[in-house]
């Protein structure tokens, strides 16, 4: 049975259909990429799964349980964590405190949560910055902090919304390394990403959205050679460079 199952999910904003009967299935332990041009409905799909928007139609099932329209805090408690496209860290709290907020959903024991936060800081490489205020971090560290904070909720499924957008080459490599480590921890990953070169090699499968509709879903190699996808999103340039290899 799939860990996450999205069936015919539709989300409308007035006359705009942001997600149009989208279906996605994610198995435990997979890394799934979600791509598509700006405004294709990627973030909307995330928001519907995570409970931020109630969908107009369709069903979301997580680990066999119907979670359609559950509020975000319930969705988190059930084991889905997410990060935000525009980082939403607690800027007046230290890095350590940011992590601890995430930990209290699993235990109310401050000492235990503190201990776990220290371990997670170590795991994500933020230990040295633990006493810095969230707001004073670089964008790369803020994104890393969001991931670390999500991990504190002990998710089975982690949804990262453009975790590598706007990062330098080196920072992107570091982020990729972290994603590999998460995968080794058996966390299922659902990634929205704009940086094609980054998402293609790490995803087991890639889902492509355009104007709210799913236009393709396949292994990365096939997706990047799919004519419709190329036309919709990748552009001729990327197609050409793939052929040159």
């Amino acid at each position: 049975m799939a860990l996450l199952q999205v069936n015919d999910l539709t989300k409308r904003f007035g006359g705009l259909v942001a997600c149009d009967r989208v279906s996605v299935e994610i198995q435990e332990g997979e890394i799934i990429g979600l791509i598509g041009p700006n405004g294709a409905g990627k973030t909307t799909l995330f928001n519907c799964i995570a409970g931020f928007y109630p969908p107009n139609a369709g069903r979301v099932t997580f680990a066999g349980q119907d979670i359609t329209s559950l509020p975000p805090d319930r969705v988190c408690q059930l084991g889905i964590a997410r990060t935000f496209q525009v980082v939403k860290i607690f800027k007046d709290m230290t890095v350590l405190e940011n992590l601890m907020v995430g930990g209290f959903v699993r235990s109310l024991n401050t000492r235990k949560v503190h201990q776990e936060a220290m371990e997670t800081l170590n795991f994500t490489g933020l230990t040295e910055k633990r006493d810095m205020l969230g707001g004073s971090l670089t964008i790369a560290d803020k994104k890393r902090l969001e991931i670390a904070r999500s991990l504190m909720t002990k998710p089975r499924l982690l949804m990262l919304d453009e975790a590598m957008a706007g990062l330098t080459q080196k920072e992107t490599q570091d982020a990729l390394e972290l994603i590999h480590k998460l995968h080794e921890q058996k966390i299922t990953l659902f990634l929205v990403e704009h940086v094609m070169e980054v998402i293609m090699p790490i995803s087991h499968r890639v889902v492509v959205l355009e104007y709210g509709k799913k236009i393709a879903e396949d292994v990365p190699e096939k997706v990047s050679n799919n004519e419709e996808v190329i036309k919709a999103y990748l552009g001729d340039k990327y197609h050409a460079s793939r052929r040159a290899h």
Partner: protein
Amino acid sequence: MFAATAVFLLLFPAIFTLPFPQHIMIMIFLYATLAQSWNLIGGYAGQVSLGHAVYFGAGAYTSSLLLMKWGLSPWLGMLAGAGLAAGLSLIIGYPCFRLAGHYFAIATIAIGEIAQISMVNWKGGGGAVGLYLPILDESFTNFEFHSTKVPYYYIALGITAIVFLVTYLIEKSWLGFYFRAIKGDLDASRALGINVPKYKSIALAISAFFTAVAGTFYAQYILFIDPESVLPLMLSILICLVAILGGVASVWGPFLGSVVLVSLSEYTRTYLGGGGKAIDLMIYGGLIVLIARFQPEGLMGMLKKFR
């Protein structure tokens, strides 16, 4: 530093035996309690309430009316008033917490006005004339002392100490983290499993509880209450300003703010008499402007810098 302050506060009535300095300290404790209670919802959780007089009034009126109608001990009345205020806060919070930022503040002002006007018109509750509490024998049980202020001093000190201890414990627990998270970012809080309306309500209920405790204390100390003294908008604003001046979301800020405000207002009142009315607030307003401009973290932020 903490121990020295504690010893000083405990010995204060023995050193300053005149009623005036004792009265000033009692008022400092009262406002520190109010500001600290406000700090939980307004400072830590970031929901600026400008209607806290409602809870203060609820405490003052509940214990006074229970005492006058049924002769109930003000200590039990204090608990009843605090419980009522906490319950009331849940009812008030339910619609108001749907509003964000300034709109929440405006809604709380409106509710404060409703409460004051209702009490002015409720004859059974004393109406606009107010309530004169019965003069009973001096005793701890009766919560009345006529010959000396010293017992009031220690009761006020005790209440303040409890509120500060509770705040300290909350700050260290998940509640403190959740309140600050809600202040920081709503979406991130929800994504991390925080039931935002629930935790806002918890913060407000604890806040209302202790605000009402202070209300009962005030009634027993002054022995007279009316809608003008325990339910005015100005009181709601003062409570919030004391906390902001001292420094929000810090355990000691409200105490510091209260020391500055109460000393200022009591001394200007004493030295300038009736002509000096509201001068303390003018100075205070000026201080708030300076704080907002140069030191948004309040006096506590200033102290931290010097360290």
